[in-house]
């Protein structure tokens, strides 16, 4: 069974993460693992007089209450568990949980600080984006939808690594039976005048390649704008859409790091974004279908359910 680690806090962003994880897990047989991270309390903190040790009992009750609240937000058709972990940092605890559960994804709500933008990467999210070895899904502020995803868009740059994220997206779309939109973003103020035509040529190749795996369900767009934000704003987005994007090529292999373009996309994007680590492959899984075993996969698999 696909497991999704949800970075849960009893806040709006925690609830938005649950919503997004629910939307991603539904009809996939996916299950949610709500993870609450508590700071490792170090005896070296130097706290004196020794603080109320009764505090731990009070905190523990509160955490249980919050987790029960979180679980109650998950619809009945989705299996969910809740966990408390101690770790040095939130990001570290979430990554450790994802690795322990062999999770396919870490889902997190956007930080709260930004008033004007839908996404603002909070400290936890940015910690995750720098260190996670599994894809990270970011729910935009105010995300309420729990219905299954309706379309997948994948952002493709002209860099090496685009193939990785394309494969992940193809796999996700195929398993969900969803349409896939290939997207290349070009800014018009680019000094390189041939940028658009080159992007279009490259896009044609990729479309042809994608059509072989997902016939009739792939579309391709080269979106232009004065800025990345403009290009994103000019596009149409489904409510149930999710955008996949690869991590920066500066990121160490299989670690996430948001590149400059991806950061701009994130700021303007009205739908959830999934950042896929460079060179990410989910572990090869036993399957009868040789075609399936070749493709990297992200969201779903049949063979894993027995494990």
């Amino acid at each position, binding site marked *: 069974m696909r497991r999704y680690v949800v970075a849960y806090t009893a*806040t709006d962003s925690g609830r938005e993460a649950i919503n997004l994880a629910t939307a991603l897990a539904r009809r996939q047989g996916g299950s949610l693992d709500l993870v609450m991270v508590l700071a490792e309390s*170090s005896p070296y903190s*130097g706290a004196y*007089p020794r*603080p*109320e040790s009764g505090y731990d009992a009070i905190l523990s009750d*509160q955490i*249980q209450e919050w987790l029960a609240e979180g679980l109650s937000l998950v619809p009945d058709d989705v299996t969910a568990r809740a966990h408390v972990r*101690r770790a040095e940092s939130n990001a570290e605890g979430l990554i450790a949980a994802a690795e322990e559960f062999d999770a396919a994804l870490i889902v997190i709500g956007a930080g709260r600080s930004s008033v004007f933008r839908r996404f603002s990467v909070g400290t936890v999210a940015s910690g995750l984006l720098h260190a996670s070895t599994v894809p990270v899904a970011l729910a935009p502020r105010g995300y309420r939808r729990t219905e299954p995803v309706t379309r997948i868009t994948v952002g493709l740059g002209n860099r090496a690594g685009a193939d990785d994220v394309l494969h992940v997206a193809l796999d996700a779309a195929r398993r969900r039976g969803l349409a896939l939109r290939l997207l290349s973003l070009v800014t018009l103020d680019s000094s390189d005048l041939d940028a658009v035509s080159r992007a279009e040529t490259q896009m044609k190749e990729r479309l042809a390649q994608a059509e072989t795996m997902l016939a009739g369900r792939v579309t391709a767009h080269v979106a232009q704008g004065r800025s990345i934000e403009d290009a994103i704003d000019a596009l149409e987005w489904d409510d149930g859409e999710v955008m996949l994007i690869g991590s920066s090529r500066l990121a160490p292999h299989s670690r996430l790091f948001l590149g400059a373009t991806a950061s701009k996309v994130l700021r303007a994007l009205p739908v959830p974004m999934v950042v896929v680590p460079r060179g990410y492959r989910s572990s090869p899984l036993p399957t009868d279908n040789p075609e399936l075993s070749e493709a990297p996969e992200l969201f779903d698999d049949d063979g894993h359910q027995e494990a």
Partner: protein
Amino acid sequence: MTSTIERAGKAPGGLSRKGLKSGSVGLLGAVVIGVSCIAPAYTLTGALGPTIAEVGVHLPAIFLVGFIPMLLVALGYRELNNAMPDSGTSFTWATRAFGPWMGWMGGWGLIAATVIVLSNLAAVAVDFFYLMLAQVTGNEALADLTNNLPLNIATTWVFIGLACWISYRGMETTKTFQYVLVAFQVVVLIWFAVAAFGHVAGGTAFNALEISADWFNPFGVESFSAFAAGISLSIFIFWGWDVTLTMNEETKNPEKTPGRAATATILVIVVIYMTVALAVLAYAGVGTEGLGAGNPENQESIFAALAGPIMGPFAILMSLAVLSSSAASLQSTFVSPARTMLAMGHYKALPAGYGKISPRFKSPSYATVAAAIAAGGFYTVTRVLSENALWDTITALGMMICFYYGVTALACVWYFRAEAFTSLRNLGLKFAAPLLGGIILLVMFVQTAVDSLDPDYGSGSSIGGVGLVFVLGCGVILLGAVLMVLMYRRNPEFFRGATLRRGVAAEDLADRY
């Protein structure tokens, strides 16, 4: 700790705990924790002057004697901690032993003491912050900025605000940081002492005194009042020492490490205190002129006055040591009043808001901010009323520690009364030691309170003919009593024993099995 609620459909199951982290603190680590909680660079700069003002050259004797009640009470603390490891400190213990009213006052005493020390820590940090600015830039005028009343108060609020923010976000000092901080403090203090003795030997001391055996004779102190005041102050300098005694599961060897660490810590601290105290007396004398340790101008912050002449250009290291140790303590001390207030809020001894935990940072939200406002407010009031705010807060703090320590020690005696005479060990540790320690501390408290009525007491600040220390110390306790009655009117649940039950050791044990 990793806990999991397994759920099928909607029903949350039980919370299972697995993989509780085993102890990681060895002997050295525990000693470092002990020394860091005492923060010797900070306590010495704050307490040396006022103590010399009370007992003169008998400073070493008072420092040594002051440790005795601390030790006696700490032994009782350890027994309470072992018997009720989950149920807290002064507030819960005193409530369990004496019932809600004394419990409330015990908790209030602890909160008041920590709030006062927060304000003092911040103020000391601010003094040395400006002093260090002056030393770094070579512009001596910057050091005087701390005497600018509005600027001083504003900077203190900023320091308190920063520490509060860090604590609110649940950030903690790391092991490495703590090791570096402690090592640095110890090195600088020893450096200071060696340099002072160097001046004495080289004949360049300000007013060289020859060390005499009489300095170690506590009975040489002129009056019982001076003696009591000295003890109150030396309680303050050892405050923090007992931290290792209550560390059990954190240590590698819970049987032996806490006791050994406490012993090693006190040896380290006594060596430091004696060396520095003797160095100050031998170098500066107790005269009231110039650099003399009896000069009221030097007494608020002895290192600010003496580090320059003694250490020369390296005095900046002393500023850094005091600044870093007081700033680190400022941040870590926030945890204590915040969690005590949170527990009191949780048990409905305070309005429910105090029981709130931040869902984002999992720290006491309301209570942490309340502690910051109380500390800043306390400092502002004291600073406006007194030229010698640091001195007066330290004296008031000494009183407050005597009060809540005394109450807790007697809580220990009362809680264990049923088993006190069952063995020689119990008789000593659960009865005699805490009883004696508690009585000594409460006697010191009463004596200091009575003496401080005198407008000339301590730094000599007064309001309406009454000593400021009395107004601060007793005012805070009285305020607690008033708030307690208001709280009883508002929500008597806690005071009727509905939320936190009174108990006796033997019965509690029977409950458990």
